[in-house]
């Protein structure tokens, strides 16, 4: 069982804020396959297409039959903890700051022997364990030795907390608190134990339904934030950027036009101004502040979440300009991820299918409910993944896109959703 985490003490403002350090980042190209799967929450190892042997560490040729046809396949992670150790010494700054550190050697039932970070709540060797994968603070995949069945408060295990971005005890900025999605996100964060939620509100004079429901929560504070205004972003950053641990950028403009359905560029520009430039303005003000606090105690700055769209992968012509703005946002989010990486701040991108809101009124179901989307964000933070495709539509589009992007493009051009 894991000791439940105590509320972190208030920070002593006299002490220097620790600078973030990262575990070793270098990997071979073939090993990045493990990271690519972990980034979407999957534990995959290479399997030989000819002799079925599971490979680890990642390889260029099968260690049994020398075949080059190695494919990444999902793993159950069931195995036996053969031996364990507790490091009391490390040459690496990241681990030096976190000693003692428990490690295990696990033989998977599928064959290979793996070195793993061993959760404090995992049993002592020899024992049955389950191996899972997480992105570490450097954003690279590492293997974890976990109890076979999840134990109480496991998410608060010291090792897991080092890998994940759990909102518990953290302070979160939600850039748009007024929409149905924004309100659902705020409620989900409060439910997940967030300390403070600042909910952005671009037009304070507008009283939207449901807004009173979130402002009544003691953890929630409405703050003026207009992503189209550099001044507004800068003013809010001056007030709260030094305290924000997680930014959730859910503000968006969504209009339902292609190219010829509307003359002029005003709607498209409004979309770009929030969906793309808004993210840019926000990142320029809040990014540096988050990076400076990547190691600021047990509730340090950890994550940046972008609400993108599955249309960012391939243009959905009836919502053509919106798709384009989300594609631009995706590209910028990749840049942001690269810039945040040295501080250990995870950039999480959400790619939902149509959300059940007013702008998708004419789309047939299934549509993802705002509450489900909000839960997907909390889960992504707890799991520490990078890319989330919540809902059935997003999952299906993703599968189609991965299989063949050109085929998906043709299907979408023909109106097939």
């Amino acid at each position, binding site marked *: 069982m894991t000791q439940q985490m105590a509320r972190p003490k208030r920070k002593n403002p006299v002490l220097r804020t620790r600078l973030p350090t990262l575990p070793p980042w270098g*990997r071979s190209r073939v090993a990045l396959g493990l990271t690519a799967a972990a980034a979407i929450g999957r534990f995959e190892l290479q399997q030989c297409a000819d002799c079925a042997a599971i490979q680890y560490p990642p390889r260029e040729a099968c260690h049994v039959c020398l075949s080059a046809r190695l494919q990444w396949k999902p793993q159950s992670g069931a195995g036996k903890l053969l031996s364990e*150790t507790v490091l009391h*010494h490390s040459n690496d700054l990241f681990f030096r700051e976190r000693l003692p550190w428990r490690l295990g050697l696990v033989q998977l039932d599928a064959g290979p*022997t793996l*070195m793993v970070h061993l959760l404090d709540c995992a049993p002592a060797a020899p024992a049955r364990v389950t191996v899972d994968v997480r992105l570490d603070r450097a954003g690279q995949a590492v293997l974890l030795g976990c109890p076979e069945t999840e134990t109480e408060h496991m998410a608060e295990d010291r090792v897991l907390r080092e890998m994940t971005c759990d909102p518990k005890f953290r302070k979160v900025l939600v850039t748009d608190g007024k929409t149905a999605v924004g309100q659902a996100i705020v409620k989900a964060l409060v439910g997940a134990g967030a300390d403070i939620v600042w909910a952005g509100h671009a037009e304070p004079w507008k009283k939207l339904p449901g807004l009173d429901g979130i402002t009544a929560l003691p953890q929630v504070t409405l703050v003026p934030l207009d992503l189209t205004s550099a001044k507004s972003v800068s003013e809010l950053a001056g007030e709260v950027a030094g305290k924000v641990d997680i930014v959730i950028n859910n503000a968006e403009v969504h209009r339902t036009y292609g190219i010829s359905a509307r003359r002029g560029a005003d709607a498209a520009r409004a979309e770009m101004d929030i969906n793309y430039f808004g993210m840019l303005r926000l990142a320029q003000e809040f990014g540096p502040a988050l990076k400076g606090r990547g190691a600021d105690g047990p509730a340090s700055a950890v994550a940046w979440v972008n609400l993108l769209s599955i249309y960012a992968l391939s243009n959905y012509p009836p919502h053509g300009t919106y798709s384009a703005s989300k594609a631009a946002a995706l590209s910028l989010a990749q840049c942001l991820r690269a810039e945040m990486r040295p501080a250990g701040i995870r950039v999480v991108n959400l790619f939902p299918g149509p959300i059940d809101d007013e702008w998708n009124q004419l789309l047939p179901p299934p549509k993802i409910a705002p509450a489900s989307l909000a839960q997907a964000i909390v889960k992504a933070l707890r799991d520490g993944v990078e890319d989330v495709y919540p809902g059935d539509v997003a999952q299906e589009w993703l599968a189609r896109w991965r299989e063949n992007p050109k085929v998906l493009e043709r299907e979408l051009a023909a109106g097939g959703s």
Partner: protein
Amino acid sequence: MNRASRKGYDGIAVAVPVTVPYVRYSTHGAHWFIGRVLAELVRESGIRKDDIDGLCVSSFTLAPDTAVGLTQHLGLSPRWLDHLPMGGASGVVAVRRAARAIQAGDAEVIACVGGDTNHVESFRQTLGSFSLFARDATYPYGSGGPNAMFAFITSHYMRSYGAQREDFGRICVAQRENALATPHAMFKKPLTLDEYMAARVIAEPIHLFDCVMPCAGAEGVLLMSEARARDLNLSFARLLAATERHNAYREDPIMIRGGWAKDRDDLYAQAGVKPDDIDLVQFYDDYPVIVMMQYEDLGFCEKGEGPAFVRSRTLTREGDLPTNTSGGQLSVGQAGAAGGFIGLVEAVRQLTGQSPGRAVPDAKLGLVSGFGMVTYDRCVCTGALILGRGDSR
């Protein structure tokens, strides 16, 4: 495999054991240390530098050079050249291959050298780029170097065979006693079992005195025909048997035995001796659990009897199975790839009467084993030699 067809190593002399004294850190490069070994080999043997027509080098810190760049750096023109990336097995493998080259007439005098420098930063830098598997699958897990992996192996061995920390302590304490008379040993302070037990923990169950200290230094020998050695009036040891094996027992999920076990029958048969006949052993000693495994895997006792074996035997120079008579890496220090030569050089000294004041009495047969390269979860390279006393000056 038909082992009977394997030719012997008759007529090969291993001579001129040389050590460049170890230092904790050095501002010199690896080339300096290897240069010092070669200068000493030339001086001690009385040959000219140009008479060295074969060179075999092992080093971690020569980069961007290899043995190739070294020939130009040191002005050598060998007709046989080898670079062995085998760390702790490199001395054994160097002798084996150089012997074949001499038997075949491809070279007459081969210098086998292992050496490295050690800057304050070198050890940490070596760890991160040690192997592809290490970079992908072990270094990101705490960057402890081989400590974590050998902690797994030690802990698992203890649980499997009832070994106690004290049993490993006996090995370390005996080696320290041996080191007290070794001029170039880094550790010259006696070590008691109590001090061993009280040392700080590094990676449970490995404690401070289970670990070697990285340092700078170099070791080397000359190989030539016995006839040539006699012409030069050099004392030499004869090579009686040699084996090497890589990635043995890959089916074992965790290391419980080394490749020595696979080839030991061949080794002893080739030399025509039994383990009982061996007067001294120089085992690779990166961690004491590996020394214990070598008693088992090289036939001094059965698998799992290692703990009882070290309790019943005296491992010091005056004991009934002198082990790592210089003090080994655990007490002399680990000078990178020189760690693969330290046992070889010491065995040649002992068998040629070149260890004044610390000779194993009447030593005629010595066994040298190597173990190198933790590319992932164990050392991949293993090898062993049996050396016999040859002519002495």
